[in-house]
C-alpha cells in the first residue's frame, strides 16, 4: 500500500533544500507530462489537417517520459511515497521495526549504486560517441541519459538523507 506522508518536525536547512529541489522536480515532471500530451495532440491535429506530423514526435515523447518518471523520484523518497507492504513490520516492537527499516534502507543502496554507476557510463558513452536516435532530426541520446542520471542522483541523495535522519530518530518516533 502507499505509505502516508509522515509529518516532519522543524525543517533543517538540508530538508528545506531538498523540499525546494523536489518542488522544482515535480514542476518539471508536470510540464513534461503536459508537453508529451501536447505533442501527441499536435500530431493528431496536423494529421487531421492533412499535413505531415511533428518530426520525431515519438522520440520527443520518449525523452519526456524519462523526465516525467525519473525526475520526481526524489519527491517520492522525500514523501515516503514508495509502495510497501507493512502488514508484518508494523506489528513488531518499535525498536525491531526501526532496525529492520534501517537494514532494508541500507540494502536499497545495493540497487541505487549500480543504477547510478551504469547511468554515468551510459552518459559517457552517449556523449563521447555522439550517439543519436534514428529519425529525421537525428536527436542526440545524451539529454535523456543526463536526465536519467541526474534524477537517480537526486533520488540517491534524498534516500541517503532519509536514512541518516531515520537512524537518528527515537524508535517509533515520526519526526
Amino acid at each position, binding site marked *: *500500500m*502507499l505509505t502516508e506522508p509522515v509529518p516532519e518536525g522543524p525543517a533543517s536547512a538540508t530538508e528545506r533544500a531538498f523540499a525546494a529541489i523536489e518542488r522544482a522536480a*515535480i514542476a518539471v*515532471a*508536470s510540464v513534461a*507530462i*503536459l508537453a*508529451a*500530451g*501536447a505533442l*501527441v*495532440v499536435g*500530431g*493528431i491535429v496536423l494529421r487531421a489537417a492533412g499535413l505531415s506530423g511533428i518530426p520525431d514526435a*515519438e522520440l520527443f*515523447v*520518449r*525523452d*519526456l*517520459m*524519462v523526465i*516525467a*518518471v*525519473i*525526475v*520526481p*523520484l526524489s*519527491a*517520492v523518497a522525500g*514523501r515516503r*511515497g*514508495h*509502495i*510497501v*507492504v*507493512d*502488514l*508484518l*513490520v*508494523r506489528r513488531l516492537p518499535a525498536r525491531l*521495526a526501526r532496525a*529492520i*527499516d534501517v*537494514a*532494508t534502507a541500507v*540494502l*536499497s543502496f*545495493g*540497487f541505487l549504486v*549500480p*543504477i547510478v*554507476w*551504469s*547511468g554515468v*557510463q*551510459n552518459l559517457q558513452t552517449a556523449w563521447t560517441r555522439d550517439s543519436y536516435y534514428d529519425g529525421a532530426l537525428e536527436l542526440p541520446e545524451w539529454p*535523456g*541519459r543526463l536526465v*536519467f542520471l541526474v534524477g537517480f542522483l537526486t533520488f540517491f541523495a534524498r534516500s541517503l538523507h532519509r536514512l541518516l535522519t531515520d537512524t537518528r530518530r527515537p524508535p517509533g518516533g515520526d519526526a
Partner: protein
Amino acid sequence: MDPVVLGVVAFSAAMVLIALRMPIGFALGGTSFAATFVLYAWPAGQAFDASRALRPTLSLVSNSSFTFIHSYELSLVPLYIALGAIAFRARITVDIYDAFRVLLGRLPGGLAIASIFGCGGFSAITGSSVACAATFSKIAVPEMLRYGYSPRLATGAVATGGTLGSLIPPSVPFAIYGIFAEQSISKLFVAGIVPGLLSMLAYVAVVVWWAARRPQDAPPPAETFTPAQKLAAVLRTGPAVLLFLIVVVGIYGGIFTATEAAAVAVAVALAIGVFGRRLSWEGFRAAMSEAAVQTATIFFVAIGAKMFATFFALTGVTNIVVDWIGHQGFAPWQILLAVVLLYLVMGMFLDPLGILLLTLPVLVPLAEGVRIDLIWFGVILIKMLEIGLITPPVGFNAFVVHSSLAGRVPLHDIFAGVWRFLVIEIVVVAALLAFPALSTWLPRTL
C-alpha cells in the same frame, strides 16, 4: 550455480524483503541485480569469477530501466493519471454522482445505487479505484448516513463501487498489464467494458436485494426534484460524457490509439476546467503534482519488475515451470482457477499494483504456454485485483473509506457491509471464467 536454484532463491529473497517493508521497487530491482551478478559470475559447473559478471549485469540494469521508460507507448500511463487528477479537481467526476442521485435517489436503496453508478462513471474517466473510493466516501456516504442509511450499506456500496476503477476503461492496471504481456492496450481497455458493466449491475443487484430485505437500511430521502432540476443534473454530466466518449468511442471507433485518446482527453479536460471556470490555478497545480508523484511511484515499481522479469527470462525458470505444468496435463481452466485463488490470497495482504508487477513475469509466460487468451487472462487478473481491494484484512478500499470518514464508521462495519458484495463478486468471476466471450467478444470486433 544452477540457474533454476538461483531463480527460486532470488524469488524467495524478494518476497522476504517485501515482507520486511522494503519498497517493492527496491526489493525487485535489488534482488534482480544481485541475482543476475551471481548468474554471470557463477555459471553452472564453473568456478565463481566476479570479473566476468560486472559488465553484463550493469548492462542489464541500465537497459532494463532506461529502455523500459524511454517508451512512447508508456506515455499513456502518466496521461491517464493526469486526466483523472484534472477531472477530479475540475469537479467533472462529482457531477456524475449528482445526476444519478437526483434521478435515482427516491428508489429503494437509490442513493447507494447512485453511488455505484457514480463510481462507474468516475471510473470511466479516472481509472483509479482508490481515488474513486476516497471521493465517494466523502460525498456519498455522509449523505446516505444523513438520510438514515445503514452505515454498512453506505460504506459497503462505496468501497465496492470504488473497485470499478481498474476494470472500466481507462485503467492504469490494464495499461501496465498490456505493457508486460505485450498485448494491445486498446483491446484490453475495450475488453474491460462488459466485465465492468456486469460488475456494476451485480453491485446494484446486491443493493436492490438488500433494500428489499431490510428496508430500514435504505429509507427513501424526503428530498424531491422537479423535472427541470433532473434535466439540469443530467446536462451537468456533459463534460464527463464527453471525456468518456473520447476515450472509449475514440479507441473503439479506431479514431485514436489508447495513447492519443489519453492526450486528447487531457486537453479537453483542461479546456473544460479553464473555460468552464471549474479549475483554479491551485487545483491545476495540485492535480499535476499528484500525477507526477503517482507516475514516479508506479514506474519505480515497474522498473524493478521489468528487471525481475529480465532476470527470470535469463534463468529459464519460467520455461521449466511451463514445461512441468504441460507435462502434468493441467487444463487451462485449472491453471486459471489456481491463479484466481493465488490472487485472492495475495489480495488479502498486498497492494494490487504490487501483486500485478510481482506476478506478471511468471504468470504471463505460463498463460501463454498453456494457450490461454492473454486478453481474457488480463481481465481475470484485473478483476481479481479489484476483489483484493475489499477483502480483509488489507482491503485497501475499506481502509480508504474508513480514513476518509475520519473513523465515523468502524472498520469492522465496513467489512461487514462489503461481504455481501464479495459473494456476488464470486458469481461475476465465475461468469467471466465460464464465458470468456464476455471479455473477448468486444475486443475481437476492433
